[in-house]
């Protein structure tokens, strides 16, 4: 049985102004996150992952947001800043990429955790806040919380700071936790610890998690569902197994084949040609990805690629996945693919 829907995003578009005009960095994105579920958003740098997360949190001060962002039925996109402030840090919270810069360098750790408690629990006393902050630090695996609470960020290692940030994020038992590249700045052993911690906390709090990353290994370890984003759009979305075992969209397949595998030897990694176009130069009509797979015949592409449900709960944009092939693959096999499709 599926869990309760927690967050439902309908046709979200977030645009930024560049030279007088608005350009959509997030373009017509719809997503659902359920309780106790991890939704991963993956894609290359610049594909709009953070822009989506910041839209949900209402942290874009200059962006134009259209569409619905329903958190437990309430449309966040319609709320005023002060109404959002009652929700941010309480019902939903965020973990940031760079633990070295995400904490105020001139404030004790305890004060920074205390702040989020103070903001949402007016009747908690100072000592109660302090004691609870110590408890939180212990919970995220900081060895001597009574000491750490009076320390400043620069006295802690990167991994420890990320734990502090997680402590801040979970302080008010949020329903929704958004983690934007939570382990990118950390090395493997610390990454594994942080991921295990997030998993554990999610189970305890029954929260929904949006995990943003470009590390597919992290996705495979953590996610229940995966949305692959390219140039502001979702190009494929499904449960984690389908994405890894049966990827359909050329972009998903390209990403997967560009990571060095650890279980078998491969000679060469696949390289996705070109780069993600900048916001201003995104193709707005026709296909956005086709310039990065130039060996595919132009006739194969659609003019208005839309998401199709190719099998139950597996959505893929457009149809040319049916005849996509990698340049080093045998073209004969592909020809068969075409006739079959």
């Amino acid at each position: 049985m599926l869990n309760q829907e927690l967050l439902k995003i309908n046709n979200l578009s977030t645009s930024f102004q560049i030279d007088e005009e608005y350009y959509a960095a997030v373009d017509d994105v719809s997503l659902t996150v359920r309780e106790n579920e991890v939704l991963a958003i993956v894609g290359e740098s610049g594909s709009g992952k953070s822009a989506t997360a910041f839209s949900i949190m209402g942290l874009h001060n200059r962006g134009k947001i259209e569409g619905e962002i329903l958190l437990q039925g309430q449309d966040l996109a319609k709320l005023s800043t002060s109404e959002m402030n009652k929700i941010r840090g309480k019902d939903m919270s965020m973990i940031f990429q760079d633990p070295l810069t995400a904490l105020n360098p001139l404030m004790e750790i305890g004060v920074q955790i205390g702040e989020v408690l103070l903001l949402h629990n007016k009747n908690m006393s100072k000592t109660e806040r302090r004691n609870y902050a110590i408890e939180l630090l212990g919970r995220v695996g900081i060895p001597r919380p009574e000491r750490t609470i009076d320390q400043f960020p620069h006295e802690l290692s990167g991994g420890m700071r990320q734990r502090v940030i997680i402590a801040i994020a979970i302080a008010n038992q949020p329903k929704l936790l958004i983690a934007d590249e939570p382990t990118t700045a950390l090395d493997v052993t610390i990454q594994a610890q942080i991921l295990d911690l997030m998993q554990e906390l999610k189970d305890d709090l029954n929260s929904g998690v949006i995990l943003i990353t470009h590390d597919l290994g992290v996705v495979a370890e953590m996610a229940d569902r995966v949305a692959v984003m390219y140039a502001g759009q979702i190009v494929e979305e499904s449960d984690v197994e389908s994405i890894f075992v049966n990827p359909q969209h050329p972009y998903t397949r390209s990403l997967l084949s560009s990571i060095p595998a650890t279980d078998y030897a491969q000679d060469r990694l696949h390289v996705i040609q070109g780069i993600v176009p900048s916001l201003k130069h995104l193709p707005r009509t026709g296909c956005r990805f086709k310039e990065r797979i130039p060996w595919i015949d132009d006739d194969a592409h659609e003019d208005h690629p839309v998401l199709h449900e190719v099998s139950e709960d597996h959505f893929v944009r457009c149809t040319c996945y049916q005849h996509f092939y990698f340049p080093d693959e045998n073209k004969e096999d592909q020809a068969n693919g075409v006739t079959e499709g």
Partner: protein
Amino acid sequence: MWKFIVRRLIITLPQLLLMSLLVFFMASLMPGDAFTSQVDPSLSPEAIEEQRERLGLNDPWYQQYGRWISNVAEGDFGTSTAHYRPVTDLIWERMINTIWLSLLSVIFIYAIGIPLGIISGRWNDRLVDQIITGYTYLGFATPIFIFALVVLFFFGFTLGWFPTGGSVASGLEPGSFEYIMSKLHHLLLPALSIALIGVVGTVQYLRSEIIDTKQKDFIVTARAKGAPESRVYNRHIFRNSVLPIAAFFGYEITMLITGSVFVEQIFSYPGMGNLFIESILIRDFPVVTAVVLLFGLAAILGALLSDIILSIVDPRIRIK
């Protein structure tokens, strides 16, 4: 922190030594004898030579330096060649006046600079900011003595709201209420002139510091906690941006003390700067030497004060 302060104090000693040596050699190059002023340059060469010998001026320099510096340490700067009074007496009252002027200027600078910097940084590129930035450009471009002259002419002479010279009206009982008010009245115009021009650095520094801090990741963290804008600004942005300003306090004071030279001259305010210029004009070298030494001392102590304040406000130094 204590280690840092002690270490900082230790560094100050060689600084003081070096500065006093520099002043000593500068003074040795002046005609006559700037240290004791007992050699009259108008005497015949033979007589001078005899006097020099008697006063020990032909001793090796380090002996002379040693004698001079120990006198200075006891507060003896020799005798003024123009006023025939001990330099120390002459300087003492002037110094008090200059310190008052600098203190008031600093208070004005912070009272004007911090709000302007904050407003301009918070609403950067809006109209208010453009006005304030425009003002700071003007302030940079205007030489202080021209500005002071204009202020003096307008408020002092034309409107007659403020006295045009001196530090206190005559005939008042020192310590009485009227006496203090009169002092303030005399201070106000020069202090404001200094502050209005001197503030531009503080405003620009604070503005760019705030704009910088606004973009920091930890500000996004604060917003993500649900902190209202007012709190984000007061607790995170302003606090982090004003701390470095606090640390400049010492430098600011030094700058003002040494920078008051022109302003005191224009307002005929009897401070050290005023004394300095007068003494140069009448070649009263013992006084010039003493004033230069005190300015140097102020610079070194100001830097020391700033570093100590910084070590107190910045945890990254305080912890060590």
